[in-house]
């Protein structure tokens, strides 16, 4: 499998401008190495504040690293952002945690759904295209004229996914896409993501604090703690034979609320 994205020795600090005064201050992210083959599913796990979302934002070009190098499809991220910014963002799309706040409450679904195409491809999508995108995530065309407050959390998250996929990305980053949803709806959204991954040959990056969720979806798991990778590897290996105490805590925490009877 070809490597689609590679990050080596990434360092990041939100207060990089203050580092000169205090060079020993702790980094938000420290010495991160990630390799993502095309078409793979990668899970990023860790507690709040561990740097999961920051890492995702670096990888999809929403933040710039302080040190280190990110390569996407053979070109460095710096080069992508200076020369082909639109194309890079088209190929790397993201879905956020709270569906209610990722859609503008004053815009109809139709308008929100058209935004990426307008911004990245500089054209207005046709009505049939909008319908097809919604169909892809199991929604009917009648939601197009609705406002976000008229829809349920699960429906909004589907729309957020449809919007991300409207520009046919290579990588879909999902940052805690089910944390704000009921468990019954969570299962629907995860199935949707797995189905779409298959159909569109996507590379899927799923961020979650819940190992149980990631273990059902991802082949590879990266465990983050305090901005550092404490463990990385194949899902079964990480889950059944955790190498660090922290991963063991995570496994136990998700096992505590498990209902699967052995």
């Amino acid at each position, binding site marked *: 499998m070809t490597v689609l994205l590679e990050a080596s020795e990434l360092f990041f600090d939100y207060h990089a401008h203050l580092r000169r005064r205090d060079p020993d201050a702790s980094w938000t992210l420290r010495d991160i190495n990630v390799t993502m083959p095309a078409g793979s599913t990668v899970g990023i796990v860790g507690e709040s*504040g561990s740097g999961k979302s920051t890492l995702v934002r670096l990888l999809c070009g929403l933040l710039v690293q302080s040190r280190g190098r990110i390569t996407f499809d053979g070109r460095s991220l710096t080069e992508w952002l200076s020369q082909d910014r639109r194309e890079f963002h088209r190929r790397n799309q993201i879905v956020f945690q709270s569906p209610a706040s990722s859609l503008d409450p004053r815009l109809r679904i139709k308008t929100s759904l058209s935004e990426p195409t307008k911004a990245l491809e500089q054209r207005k999508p046709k009505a049939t295209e909008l319908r097809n995108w919604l169909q892809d995530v199991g929604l009917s065309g009648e939601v197009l004229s609705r406002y976000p407050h008229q829809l349920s959390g699960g429906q909004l998250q589907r729309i957020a996914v449809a919007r991300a996929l409207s520009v046919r990305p290579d990588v879909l980053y999902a940052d805690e896409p089910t944390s704000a949803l009921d468990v*019954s709806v969570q299962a629907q959204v995860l199935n949707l993501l797995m189905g779409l991954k298959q159909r569109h040959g996507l590379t899927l990056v799923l961020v979650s604090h819940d190992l*149980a969720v990631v273990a059902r979806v991802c082949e590879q798991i990266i465990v983050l703690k305090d901005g550092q990778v404490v463990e990385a590897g194949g899902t079964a290996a990480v889950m059944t034979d955790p190498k660090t105490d922290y991963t063991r805590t995570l496994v136990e925490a998700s096992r505590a609320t498990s209902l699967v009877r052995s």
Partner: protein
Amino acid sequence: MLEINDLTITIGPHQIVSIEHLSIPAGRRLGLVGESGSGKTMTAMSIIGLLPRDAVVTGSITFSGVEMVNRSERDLSNIRGAEIGVIFQDPLRALNPTMRVGKQVSEALRLHNTVPSKDVKKRTLELFEQVQLPEPAVLARRYPHQLSGGQQQRVLISMAIACDPKLLIADEPTTALDVTVQKEILELLARLSAQRGMAVLFVSHDLGVIKAISDHVAVLYGGSLVETGPADDIVGSPRHRYTEALISVNPGHPEDIDASLGKPLVTIKGSVPPMGAFLPGCRFRGRCPHEIEQCAVEPPITEMTGDHSFKCWNPVDPAMPIDSDDAELLSGRQ
């Protein structure tokens, strides 16, 4: 200690909750589970009279032998906080952002005159210790935004138990938290409940969480109690099809991780209908994969041994555990 009989809650033309019977003995932990929109929070809040203004409540809720339905606001506010503690879902929204957290806990103590005012500060710090907050004296001087989500929830718990309540109502207290923090908070609540002989009503949409904390479970759907029983029975041998579905959607810890990887999870077909749009008869009708003709008629309560009862015409056969065939049937394909 808490007993609910023939409770109905109506808002406008819609009856939202209708519960024949539900009780929590002193010192026990009851988990109330159901999806969003099934009436869990309404039921919990009706106990302490915190319902929307236009809600009409009939039936009876007795707490330590005292009737709570249609009580005056003045009586209720004496009971709330003192005899019944409450924890809400979002800790940041339940705390005053402009006041140091120590002072907010002291306020609860002063309001109900539980301790002489010279001891209020000392008692606040004791409470912080009981909920295992590190360095109570330092944390008490912080503002809510300076604490982590787990610490904020611990502050709220200390406030809820400040006046030694006999009952603690916890409405989705761990939903906004990480799984690791969730586990700690669940353990803390279980320990406090055991130490103080405090009854707990725990509300959640996640049966996994409910199972981890409760002795007894009540499954609510469409405002109706579809199954109640000891937690182990409910999870180990559910009878109602809705309970079975709630168990199946839990992502859980599969034995064979490689085999389950990438396989679709079990889902419940469709979604909870909006208020007033439930079909007559069994509320789960329309989403249930085991529907039969009889389901159009309201199912009777079937009592079983060991305090386990359910309302279903075509229940799960206890001899047949949930298997993958059921999973196939349940999964709502798009």
